């Protein structure tokens, strides 16, 4: 790791001020992706601004028809929360399947979405539920948040404070994990909401994306049977040592059918 100065602000305002005052600063959340990246010297910052002491951006709250999760809420807290399980059990499954128990004890929701790893789990929930990302400056619709490989709509110095997930009528998340890293080789989040059906895919492309063809089929008939002849084209999907684009395309369709079944779709 290259050397840096470490800061632990006690409020979001203080953190924002630090970000504005340093030459090359970076926010530190749970550190489960950032610290390994720094250790490999894939990135270099003059200052790390650690958000872990800011209590106002931690916690889980049911707010009417939505679930609001603070950015610095750790995966273990989401995975074991009764409030989450009652409102959006698909999030319980998602958070409980990230990495391993030791990673879940440290990793945070806000860190995951701000990092926007193409194989991370949380982006599929933000997009699949049509959630809203709340920052210290504005609110960003889930559809507008993820821009590309490790790229989001966040401006330099902008801090994710929470995500507001609308409670769906039905939802499920199913992933085919890489057996070593538990990252999603392919992960599919499906939700039937008051506004319609949404399908979000992670792990398969350079960035989480919606599967609008499948959404149209499921809007007519929310069942795995509606997807019987549904296939995904491999064009533009990831191909690497773990799987070819064709393999991922096939896996997306399989995981989607399983997710619809898990969400309690008509049979």
């Amino acid at each position: 790791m290259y050397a840096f100065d470490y800061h632990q602000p006690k409020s979001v305002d203080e953190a924002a001020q630090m970000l504005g005052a340093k030459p090359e600063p970076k926010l530190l959340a749970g550190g489960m992706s950032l610290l390994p990246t720094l250790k490999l010297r894939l990135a270099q910052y003059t200052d790390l601004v650690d958000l872990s002491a800011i209590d106002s951006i931690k916690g889980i709250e049911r707010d009417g028809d939505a679930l609001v999760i603070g950015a610095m809420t750790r995966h273990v807290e989401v995975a074991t929360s009764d409030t989450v399980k009652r409102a959006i059990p698909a999030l319980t499954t998602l958070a409980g399947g990230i990495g391993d128990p030791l990673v879940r004890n440290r990793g945070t929701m806000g860190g995951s979405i701000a990092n926007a790893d193409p194989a991370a789990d949380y982006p599929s929930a933000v997009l699949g539920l049509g959630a809203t990302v709340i920052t210290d400056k504005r609110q960003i619709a889930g559809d507008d948040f993820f821009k590309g490989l490790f790229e989001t709509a966040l401006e330099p110095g902008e801090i994710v404070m929470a995500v507001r997930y609308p409670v769906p009528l039905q939802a499920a998340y199913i992933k085919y994990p890489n057996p070593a890293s538990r990252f999603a080789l392919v992960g599919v989040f499906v939700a039937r909401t008051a506004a319609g059906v949404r399908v979000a895919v992670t792990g398969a492309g350079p960035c989480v994306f919606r599967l609008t063809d499948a959404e149209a089929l499921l809007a007519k008939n929310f069942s795995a049977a509606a997807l019987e002849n549904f296939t995904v084209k491999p064009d533009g999907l990831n191909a690497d040592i773990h799987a070819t684009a064709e393999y991922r395309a096939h896996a997306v369709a399989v995981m989607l059918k399983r997710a619809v079944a898990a969400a309690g779709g008509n049979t």
Partner: protein
Amino acid sequence: MPVVTMTVNGEARSAEVEGRTLLVEFLRNHLGLTGTHVGCDTTQCGCCTVHVNGVAIKSCTALAVALDGAAVTTIEGLAQNGKLHPMQEAFREHHALQCGFCTPGMIMSAIDMVRRNGHALDERTVRKQLEGNICRCTGYHNIVTAVQAGAAAMKGQ
């Protein structure tokens, strides 16, 4: 350079560290507690697992300076009055190791598993929850047996 103070295995310990000093480096290099191992150094193998404020984490992926004031337990802190912790005893009894390199992390992780899930652990739970700890010798069979036995033995603690 910042000075960090932690309660490590019940004792207050301080050292001057850099911002980039990892918890495992603080424990091994500054305090000489070399029972905590570094296997992969990429947050995958779990050999470096310790307890911070009662929760198991990978100490190769945490900054020491961020944990100022924390209570840390390492493998060296488990035995009490010359008597092995029940989980250590179970690993010995069931021969849950070969080279032993992953063992400290396995044991720290197993104790946290009992905290999270209670003393009656079925085989599937143990295998699933040991996902963060990699052993390249044993094939895990005896480790799983030991964790189940150790979990049960901890009930009498």
